[in-house]
């Protein structure tokens, strides 16, 4: 459990921090409260929404008290308020309960490498789908994800990915006429 790790670290770090300097003390203080990042995010979104609303050009005829800016302003202000309230809650020791599940082992340390790999593979798919076509980018997405999640069957995974991707292409593009890019050889052959 990352949180409990972080907590014990914080405690020991706090103890040492009291004796030494405040710089590491602050860092250690923050480490157990990474949830403050969520507050920062909410705050940032709130500022963004408010800026967007206030810079909006409201030349257009508006009737009544509610115009195109009203709702964004309400949402933006509410975001700021919730960000502050959440920060207070976190500083008082409140903690969001991480979601459990069948496949989830909260006792294990967070495996950010896998998450980054998955996100990277997904992003690559978004950028490759137009130049390389869906069958290739889709196969890479499936194989890459399976690899990131720990599958190492090199003699099997690429084949599964290729067949799945090509069959999906066939069903969508050919049978249903939902166009998917076919790949570089579409025009050649």
């Amino acid at each position, binding site marked *: 459990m990352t949180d409990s790790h972080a907590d014990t670290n914080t405690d020991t770090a706090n103890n040492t921090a009291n004796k030494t300097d405040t710089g590491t003390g602050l860092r250690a203080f923050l480490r157990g409260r990474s949830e403050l990042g969520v507050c920062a995010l909410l705050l940032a979104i709130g500022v963004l929404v408010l800026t967007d609303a206030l810079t909006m050009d409201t030349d257009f*005829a508006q009737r009544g008290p509610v115009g195109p800016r009203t709702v964004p302003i309400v949402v933006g202000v509410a975001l700021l308020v919730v960000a502050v309230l959440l920060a207070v809650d976190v500083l008082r020791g409140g903690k969001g309960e991480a979601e459990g599940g069948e496949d989830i082992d909260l006792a294990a340390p967070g495996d950010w490498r896998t998450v980054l790999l998955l996100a990277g593979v997904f992003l690559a798919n978004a950028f490759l789908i137009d130049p390389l076509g869906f069958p290739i980018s889709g*196969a890479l997405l499936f194989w890459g994800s399976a690899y990131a999640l720990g599958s190492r069957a090199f*003699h099997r995974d*690429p084949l599964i990915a*290729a067949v799945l991707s090509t069959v999906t*292409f*066939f069903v969508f593009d050919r049978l249903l*006429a939902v166009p998917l890019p076919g790949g570089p*050889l579409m025009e050649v*052959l």
Partner: protein
Amino acid sequence: MRLSPRLRTPLALLSAALIVLLGPPLLSSGSGSATGTHIPGLRLMVPNTPGGGYDITARTAAKSAEDADLSRNIEVFNLPGAGGTVGLSRLVAERGNGKLAMSMGLGVVGAVHTNHAPSTLADTTPIARLTQEPDIVVVAKGSKYRNFDQLVADWRNKPGSLPVGGGSSPGGPDHLAPMLMAKAAGIAPKKVNYIPYDGGGELLASVLGGKVAFGVSGVGEYLDQIEAGELRVLAVTSDKRLPGLDAPTLKESGLDVSFTNWRGIVAPPGLTDAERDKLIDLVTKMHASKQWQEAVRRNRWTDAFMTGDEFGRFLTAQDKRVDTVLKELGL
């Protein structure tokens, strides 16, 4: 047959590569050669969702061309977004692609302005205008307005308290029509209390329920309600009266405006003359086919065929008109 484990991985990779590279082209049947009017691999983009006006026009046109043996396998696909300007941007980006066309209409002209879209219709190659449809001014049967003059008189007095319902977002046809009417009636367009609905269907409920003072929308969706006596038509926006509809034109009612919504087809920029002529030829022959004529009758459209440069000049004129109205509204 047993392979050595060392060979299995490269072999799997190789076959996977072969499948994804060769599979798609081999699965797709060849579209044949370019004989006669046939354009192999022609795709028709619909910049709206399935079921919308451009969608029905495009699918009907493609179907008619196929049935009349003018072309095989015209692929119709939807690329909706931002009133059609997402599709327009894609079309303009496909410079020189003679195998792509887009179904569009007056709504796209307005959306280009309201969305400040980077690509405009001036960037496209105009192919043809196909159909047109006038808007009508309707009220529910229980409304106190018996004729258009009563309505305009009240509207002039207190434009704010006469909410006008339309089936399109600001900049769309049903928005432009009442604005042009207001201008001609001496009402500042900014004073008009226009309420956009999500299409003519949603608007219909509001008109029937008397939520808006009057509605402005395309005539097609409302004919049945008119015939059943649930709706009263106060005016049509076209130049001439519509056959079978007992309603005066705006001009007869003393407003010097005429307005029709229309739909047509444009192609990407940078086509060679031959490519352009081939598309125009296909659409012209499609238009002449009995399948298309039958579809026009069935859908109660009005034929408004016009091609090439003539359509191009029409587009420019429409663009100017829309621009003037929207500038006055500050959109």
